[in-house]
């Protein structure tokens, strides 16, 4: 008996498979990260569709649930890749988000919240004033979705929930400015917009948010897998730095 599902998905990548096919990997809203063969995936018609970051409507079919299977049909619904090709930073953000999803999520496990956050990020990539901060929230959201969320609700030392300004690199718990100040050199800075979504994003906040998320991504995901942070993240931070958007 064959199995199949239909879902909205973000293309994470594709590579040639034989002469005319492609092996595509997508991140589907209700079915998580899945790879399958796309017949005709190497064709002129399908190559633009199978670009990283594009949103597609896809049906996965296989004879049994544990087979590789194939995607058919696979139809483009939102061409995000073409939108960001000319923007180095946005392109790096899209690539990096895909790299993190690929590294962090388990095969065929749904992460609907993470998918929705990815879509919000992709939709925002045309708005340079907004998306760098949003991107860092995506990284922290990814950590939370994978069970490594930071505890930013209250100060670990005093229990207060206002003026949170630091995060412990060991526990991932927040600390207020006054409680954390004596240990400032040992703590990670918590930008106000991370603790409070309504707070404005000031100069240096995005860099602090990258440092905060990067610390935990590296130790809780990438170190455990035995490889370093993706190159795309370094390129993203450099591109934002050159444009003064950190």
């Amino acid at each position, binding site marked *: 008996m064959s199995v199949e599902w239909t879902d909205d998905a973000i293309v994470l990548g594709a590579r040639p498979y034989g002469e005319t096919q492609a092996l595509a990997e997508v991140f589907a809203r209700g079915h998580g990260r899945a790879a399958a063969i796309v017949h005709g995936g190497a064709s002129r018609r399908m190559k633009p569709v199978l670009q990283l970051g594009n949103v597609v409507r896809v049906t996965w079919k296989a004879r049994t649930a544990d087979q590789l299977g194939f995607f058919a049909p696979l139809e483009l619904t939102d061409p995000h890749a073409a939108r960001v090709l000319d923007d180095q930073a946005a*392109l790096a953000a899209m690539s990096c988000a895909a790299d993190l999803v690929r590294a962090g999520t388990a095969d065929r496990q749904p992460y609907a919240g993470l998918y929705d956050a990815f879509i919000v990020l992709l939709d925002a990539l045309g708005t340079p004033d907004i998306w760098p901060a949003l991107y860092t929230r995506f990284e922290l959201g990814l950590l939370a979705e994978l069970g490594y969320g930071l505890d930013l609700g209250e100060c670990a030392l005093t229990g207060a929930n206002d003026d949170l300004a630091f995060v412990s690199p060991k526990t991932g718990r927040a600390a207020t400015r006054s409680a954390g100040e004596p240990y400032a050199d040992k703590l990670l800075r918590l930008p106000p917009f991370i603790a409070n979504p309504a707070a404005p994003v000031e100069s240096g906040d995005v860099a602090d948010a990258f440092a905060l998320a990067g610390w935990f991504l590296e130790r809780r995901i990438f170190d455990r897998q035995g490889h370093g942070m993706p190159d795309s993240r370094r*390129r993203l931070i*450099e591109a934002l730095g050159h444009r003064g958007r950190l």
Partner: protein
Amino acid sequence: MRSSRLPSVSPEIEKLIDLLAKVPGLGRRSAQRAALALLKKRDTLLAPLAQALVEASEKVKACSACGSLDAMDPCAICASPTRDQGLICVVGEVGDVWALERAGVFRGRYHVLGGVLSALDGVRPEDLRVGKLVERAAAPEVREVIIALNATVDGQTTAHYLTERLQGVDVAVTRLAHGVPVGGELELLDEGTLLAALTSRRPF
């Protein structure tokens, strides 16, 4: 699925078919047909092909300047005095050089990167011939570097990376336009190409 292996042929023929089947564009059945044609035309096809393969294996090498393939080093294009020494066209693979040469639209020199950056395939900057490009671009006669990489996420990620690496070099860095292909009909174009064409529109 029925196997296309031939149970009764000699190991020599089977080996020939196996090797031919590894050539891009040839499946196993096509390889069988090709092997048969070669064996039928032993003197006019098989022997010359074998000779050509040996010569190509012995003589063809990557050009130390541009990375393209030729039997001489530097390659014929790099060594040609009639090519514009001030233009360098950066491509991903040797096949891209051949495509541009087929079109006959570029009279400068090339630089073959040897691929593009790709997280999926684990291709990093140090796997590409980027340092050599920067070195070549810094030569006083070079005035423009044209980045002619695929209009894909990986291709354009590489293009941005190269642009950044070339920032300290006194050359103009340009890239190929993206948009409607010649002979293309709008209603048949994908949304991404239409978007790129609209974004890259210019005064008429």
